[in-house]
């Protein structure tokens, strides 16, 4: 079997293993769905009246892009914990003693978690529709928005995998996988417009990858108010391009890092 065919086959096997594990723990899926539904409801009803959207839009329309991105970003905490868990159970020793592809364990993990992120995204979209989220963008554009979310989720899952391989204990992973996501998602345009932040914070938020992805998703979903002028930062002027580039950069850094960590991880 060629190397590539072997990698594809092994990735398929590991993805199957991880999805099977997920299916046998339905509570984790249920709680993932409850969490994303809860976020949509809380933000829509608690902040809905308090935040003025530049360009005079409705907050629910503004919110959904941010919520989608935040929730899929948070999925990487799942990856982080699962990775640390596998590592602590010696399952990796078994994998590492098999003549399988070195990257398949990580790829299979991230693909399975991407499937999980897809389920929670669907739950969010439905909840959004119930609370008044609408899109009048062309179907292709909406699909491109979901595709971008998937790419972004996938890139972020690799960050979670690297953290999980680095901390090595499930207890630490539970915190380490999540904690950095709060400043990252809140220091962005996900929930409040960039324009309402202090001057010095604005460039930081603008160059935050989350902001580019949120702006891109809003644009693709047609949730940008008609008169809105994007702030004068390159990633926000060209959000779709910037998001794709950000995702590629993240993958270029974290995929090799993850594979290298994996090789070393069980060799302790």
């Amino acid at each position: 079997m060629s190397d590539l065919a072997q990698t594809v086959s092994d990735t398929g096997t590991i993805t199957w293993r991880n999805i099977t594990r997920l299916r046998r723990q339905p509570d984790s899926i249920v709680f993932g769905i409850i969490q994303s539904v809860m976020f949509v409801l809380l933000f829509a009803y608690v902040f809905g009246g308090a935040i003025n959207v530049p360009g005079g839009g409705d907050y629910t329309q503004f919110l959904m892009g941010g919520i989608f991105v935040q929730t899929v970003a948070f999925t990487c905490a799942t990856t982080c914990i699962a990775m640390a868990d596998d590592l602590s159970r010696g399952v990796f020793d078994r994998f590492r003693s098999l003549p399988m592809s070195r990257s398949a364990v990580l790829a299979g993990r991230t693909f399975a978690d991407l499937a999980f992120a897809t389920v929670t995204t669907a739950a969010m979209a439905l909840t959004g529709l119930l609370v008044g989220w609408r899109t009048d963008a062309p179907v292709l554009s909406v699909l491109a928005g979901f595709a971008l979310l998937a790419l972004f989720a996938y890139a972020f899952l690799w960050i979670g995998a690297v953290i999980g391989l680095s901390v090595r204990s499930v207890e630490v992973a539970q915190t380490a996988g999540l904690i950095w996501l709060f400043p990252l998602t809140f220091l962005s345009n996900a929930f409040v417009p960039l324009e309402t932040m202090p001057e010095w914070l604005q460039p930081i938020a603008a160059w935050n990858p989350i902001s580019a992805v949120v702006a891109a998703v809003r644009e693709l979903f047609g949730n940008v108010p008609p008169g809105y002028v994007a702030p004068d930062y390159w990633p926000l002027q060209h959000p779709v391009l910037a998001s794709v580039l950000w995702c590629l950069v993240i993958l270029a850094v974290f995929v090799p890092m993850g594979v290298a960590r994996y090789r070393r991880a069980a060799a302790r």
Partner: protein
Amino acid sequence: MSEGCGWVQPMSAIHAEGLVKVFPSRSGEVRALDGVDLDVPAGTVLGLLGPNGAGKTTTVRILTTLLTPDAGTATVHGIDVARDPQAVRRSIGLSGQYAAVDEYLTGRENLLMIGRLYHLGGAAARQRAGELLEEFDLVDAADRPTKTYSGGMRRRLDLAGALVARPPIIFLDEPTTGLDPRSRLALWDVIEGLVRAGTTVLLTTQYLDEADKLADSIAVVDRGRVIARGTSDALKAQMGGERLVVTVDHGQVETGRAVLQGLADGAVEVEEHTRTLVAPVAGGSTALIDAVRAFDEAGVRVLDLGMRRPTLDDVFLQLTGHHAEPTDAADGPEAPATTGARGASR
């Protein structure tokens, strides 16, 4: 040594020279392996015998490509483990010390997954999984998630995992720890069957009788070094045969010791708090009868009397001058090996 050549096994299935592994630890460093040499001819069984923390698992992990040694070289199936670990992995099966089964997959799914990762092909992997479930007496539980399995069932499934690809060389790290006597005997049968079919096996154990039963040759490991090696007969000859074990009444330990010394083949060992005396003796059951008479004549009240074969602890006492550490290794933390002076005799 030449590269592995197809199905023909090289003369030495496993060969290691001067393996050293040092782990950093809070109090300096732990020298887990301190120059281990091993040679296992193809088609034979090597038993790696040693107490907790001796370095058995570390040796297995190096030979199965999970760890890289700090010094030394090893070839498995004629392939250098450092140079081409992936080729080594194609020729080996491993069952680690702690059963690494996936608790949310069923037993069958676990084996199927391993078969696929060995690239057996779907149908072959399925068939092999079925065979192994049968062989390891897991048919009834085959389609239940393994988190419902008992410890021994998990252990058996993990062992089955090592055999999925019918590899020419198999590593078993304490394969029978945690198995009940029946499962242990069944596993011994499986291992003997493998060897008859030409498989090379390296197994670690803390039980002398297990090494005795299964291994063609034994390497006794202590504190990262091989301190003795040979066939079990050769080692036992070195051990000085059977032990007479006597428990005497209160206040009679000293008298008992003196009586026993008259019959013994070596030093009498005294365990004060249990009032038990142990002595190597020659002559089998005759020694037992002699002992009964001698104690009776000396007026020593004997509460318990029996013979036993030399144990791992005896081996260590003899070889190193110190006892093997307690052997309830199943889950306890490994005792760190101190890199101090070694006990005297060899």
